[in-house]
C-alpha cells in the first residue's frame, strides 16, 4: 500500500515537474509572442532561436507561420513551413496547436502559395473545422470556410438567398462569441454586396450588436446599418434604438448630424 502511494506520489511529482518545465519553456517564448504580435518577422525568428524553445509545439507553429511570411516568398520556404505543419498536426492530434497546424496548411494554399490551390485549401479548412469543433482554431476554420463559400462565383444571384440562409446557420456552430460575431459581420458584408434581403440581414446585425464589436468603426457602422434596415422594413420605432445608441456613443462622428436629424424626423412622424 505504502509502495503504491509512494509510486503515485512520484508519478504526480514527475508530471508536475514536467508541466512546470513545459510552462517555463513556453514562457521563454514570451518575447517572441510579443514581437510576433507586432508583426516583426526577423525579430520574432531571433527571439524563438534565443528562447531555447524552438522545438516546442508553440515554437514550431510560430516558426512555420514566420516561414510562410518571410519575404521574398520562395517555394522552398513554403515547402519547409508545410513540412513543419504536417509533422506538428500529426504529433499534436486533439490539441489546439494540432488544429492550428491544419488551419495554416489551408492558409498556405489559400493565400500564400505562389499558385493558390483553393480546393486543397478548403479541404484543410474543413478538416480543421471538424477536428477542432468547439475550439478556437476550429471556429476560425469554419468562419473562413463560410466567408469564402458565400462568395462562390458559380452561385447565381437568384440562388444566393438560399445559400445565405443555409450558410448563416453555421454561426450557431461557432462557440466563441467573438468569433461568432465576426462571422455575422462577414455575412452582413457579403449579404449586402450580393443582394441578401433586409429580413435576412437583420438577425445577423442584431447578433453583432448583442455580442458587441471591439473596433469602434465596426460598432458605429453596425448601429447605422441596423437602423437603416429597420427603417426600410417599416419598423421606425425600433430603428430609434440603434440610432440613439449611435448618438450616445459617437458624438464626434461626422455622421452624427445626419442621424440626429433622422431621429427627429422619425420621432415627428411617430407622434403624428
Amino acid at each position: 500500500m505504502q509502495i503504491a502511494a509512494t509510486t503515485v506520489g512520484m508519478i504526480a511529482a514527475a508530471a508536475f515537474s514536467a508541466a512546470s518545465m513545459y510552462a517555463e519553456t513556453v514562457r521563454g517564448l514570451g518575447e517572441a509572442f510579443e514581437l510576433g504580435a507586432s508583426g516583426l518577422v526577423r525579430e520574432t525568428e531571433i527571439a524563438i532561436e534565443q528562447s531555447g524553445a524552438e522545438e516546442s509545439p508553440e515554437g514550431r507553429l510560430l516558426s512555420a507561420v514566420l516561414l510562410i511570411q518571410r519575404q521574398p516568398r520562395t517555394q522552398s520556404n513554403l515547402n519547409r513551413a508545410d513540412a513543419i505543419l504536417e509533422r506538428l498536426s500529426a504529433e499534436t492530434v486533439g490539441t489546439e496547436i494540432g488544429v492550428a497546424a491544419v488551419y495554416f496548411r489551408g492558409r498556405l494554399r489559400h493565400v500564400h502559395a505562389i499558385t493558390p490551390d483553393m480546393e486543397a485549401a478548403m479541404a484543410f479548412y474543413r478538416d480543421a473545422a471538424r477536428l477542432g469543433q468547439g475550439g478556437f482554431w476550429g471556429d476560425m476554420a469554419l468562419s473562413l470556410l463560410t466567408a469564402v463559400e458565400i462568395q462562390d462565383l458559380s452561385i447565381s444571384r437568384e440562388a444566393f438567398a438560399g445559400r445565405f440562409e443555409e450558410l448563416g446557420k453555421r454561426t450557431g456552430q461557432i462557440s466563441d462569441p467573438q468569433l461568432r460575431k465576426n462571422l455575422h459581420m462577414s455575412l452582413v458584408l457579403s449579404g449586402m454586396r450580393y443582394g441578401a434581403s433586409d429580413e435576412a440581414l437583420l438577425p445577423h446585425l442584431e447578433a453583432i450588436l448583442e455580442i458587441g464589436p471591439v473596433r469602434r468603426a465596426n460598432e458605429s457602422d453596425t448601429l447605422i446599418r441596423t437602423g437603416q434596415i429597420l427603417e426600410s422594413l417599416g419598423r421606425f420605432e425600433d430603428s430609434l434604438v440603434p440610432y440613439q445608441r449611435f448618438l450616445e456613443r459617437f458624438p464626434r462622428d461626422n455622421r452624427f448630424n445626419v442621424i440626429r436629424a433622422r431621429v427627429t424626423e422619425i420621432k415627428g412622424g411617430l407622434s403624428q
Partner: protein
Amino acid sequence: VNWERISNYIGFSLLALCFGIALVRVVTRTQAEIDPNTTIIRFAHWQLEPGFREAMDEVSRAYMRKHPNVRVEQLAVPERIYPTWLRTQLVGGNAPQIIAIGSGVNDEILARFFMPITDLVDDPNPYNEGSVLEGIPWRDTFLDGLAGPNTYNSTLMENYGVPTSLFTIRVFYNVELWREIFGDRPVPRTYEEFVQVSEETERWARQRNRSLVPIYGSRYNSPLLMERLFGSQTQSLVLQGFGLRSMRLSTFDIHAKMLRGELGFHTSEFASGLEIMRDVTRFMQDGFLQQGREEATLYFVQQRALMVVTGGWDAGSFRIQAPFEVRAFPLPLPSRQHERFGRYVRGPQTELDAGLTAGWGLVRGVQHSEVALDFLRFFSSHEGSSIFSRVSGWLPAISGIEIQPVQKDFVPNEDGYPGGINPFLPVLGGNSRRVVEEHLHRLVGPAGSVERFISSIESDLARALVQDMRLREINSARQAGRLDLQVTALFLQRAAGGPKSAAAGRKLYEALEGYMSAETDRTAMARVLQEISAR
C-alpha cells in the same frame, strides 16, 4: 598694396575664426553632454513653418524652468529629407528620444522603433493638477480621446503618438486688399457670393491693370479646394447607402463599382463634381497645375492673389511673412437650393471628424526615455498646450484650452453632413490618382471641358483601376500574412498565461475583427477581378 595677399589673409582669418567658433561650440556642447547633472532631451520634426519652432522653444523653456537639470533641444529637419534622415537615425541608433510621427513612418517602423503609450495614457497627467483637467485620464484630455485614425493605430492596436493640433482647410484672404476692393462687405457665406467675389475681383484687377488673380492655385493648394467641391456633388452617393448602408465610404465597393462601370466620371454626380471644379478653378491663374506650394505662398504674400486655399498649418507662416493682415473663412459650398449645383447636395459639410495630428512619438531603447515621456506629459498638459497653441497659432489638441482670436477662423464646423468622394481617387490606388492628375489639364483652363476630360480619361482610368485592384489584392495577401502572424502570436501569448495574457486576449479579438473583414474583402476582390477578366 598687394591686394591678393590681403585678401588671402582675410580669407585665412575668416577660416580660422569659423574653425575657432565651431571648436568652441563642439567643446561646450560635449561638456554639456558629459555633465552628469544635465539630462538632454531632443525632439525632431519637419515643421519649418514659422511659429511652430518658436512655440516648441517656449514649451521647452517652461519645462526646463520646472526641471533645471534637464535641457530640451529641438532638431528641425527639412520635410524633403525627413524620411531618409529619420530612417538613418533610427537604424543607426542615433535617434533623438522624441520624433514627429508622420512623413516616412509606416507601421513597420512604428512597431520596430517606437514605444506604444497605450497603457500609459489611462492615468491622469500629473501636470494637469490644479487645472480643469485635474484627475482626468491623460487619454481623455485629448479632443478625440486618442481614438482617431491618426492617433490610434488599428493595425498594431496601440497608441503611439502625443498629438499636437488639429487642422481644417480654409480660404485665406488678404484683408487689406479685400477692403480696397469690397470695402466693408463681409466674407462670402454662400457659393453664389464666393463666385461673385471672385468675378468682381477679376473685373477690379482688369480695370486697374493690376496683376492680381482671385484665387492662387498650385498643384498643392488646388486639390484641397477641388476635393471639397467635388465632395459636395458626390455627398448624396455616400449618404444613400453607398458605403454598404453605413453612410461611410467603402473604398473597395467604390472601386468595384467603378470597375464594373456602374460609377465613374460619366455618371451624373461625378460629372456635376467636375463641372463645379471647373466653375471655381477658372478664377485661378493660367497653368496653376504646374506651380508648387512655395510659389503659391510667395505670390499670395506678394499680394498677387486675393485668396489662397490651404490648411490651418499655414496660418503662422502667413501671419509672420505677409506684410498685411490675413484672415480665413470656410469654403462656401452650394446649398440644396442652388440652381446649378444643388441637386446632389445634402447639406453643408461637417468637420466634426477633423482629426488630430499623429504627433510626437517616443523612440524605444534610448537614454532618458522616462524624462522624454515626462516632457510629452508636460507638452500635452493644460499649461503646455496653452503655451504651444498661443505661440504657434495652431488649434490645441487638448480640450479645455482657450481659443485665441486668431484661431477662431479655424475652429471646425460641427454642423452638417459628411462630404463625398475625392475626385483624385487616392484611396483606390496610386495608378488611378496618377491618371486623374495627368488628365486634369483637359478639365481646367480655357481649353478644358468636362466632356474633353471624360472622353480622354476613360480608357486610361479603366486600365488603372484594374491595376490598382490587382495591387489591392496583392497587398491584402501580404497583410493577411502579417495578420496570420499577429493572430498566432497573440493566441499563443494568451494561452501561455501570465501577466500579459489578458491584454493579449483583448488584442487578439481586436485583430480578429480586422482579420475577418479583410478576408471577406479579399475574397470579394478576387471575385471582382474574375468577373472583369471573364468579360
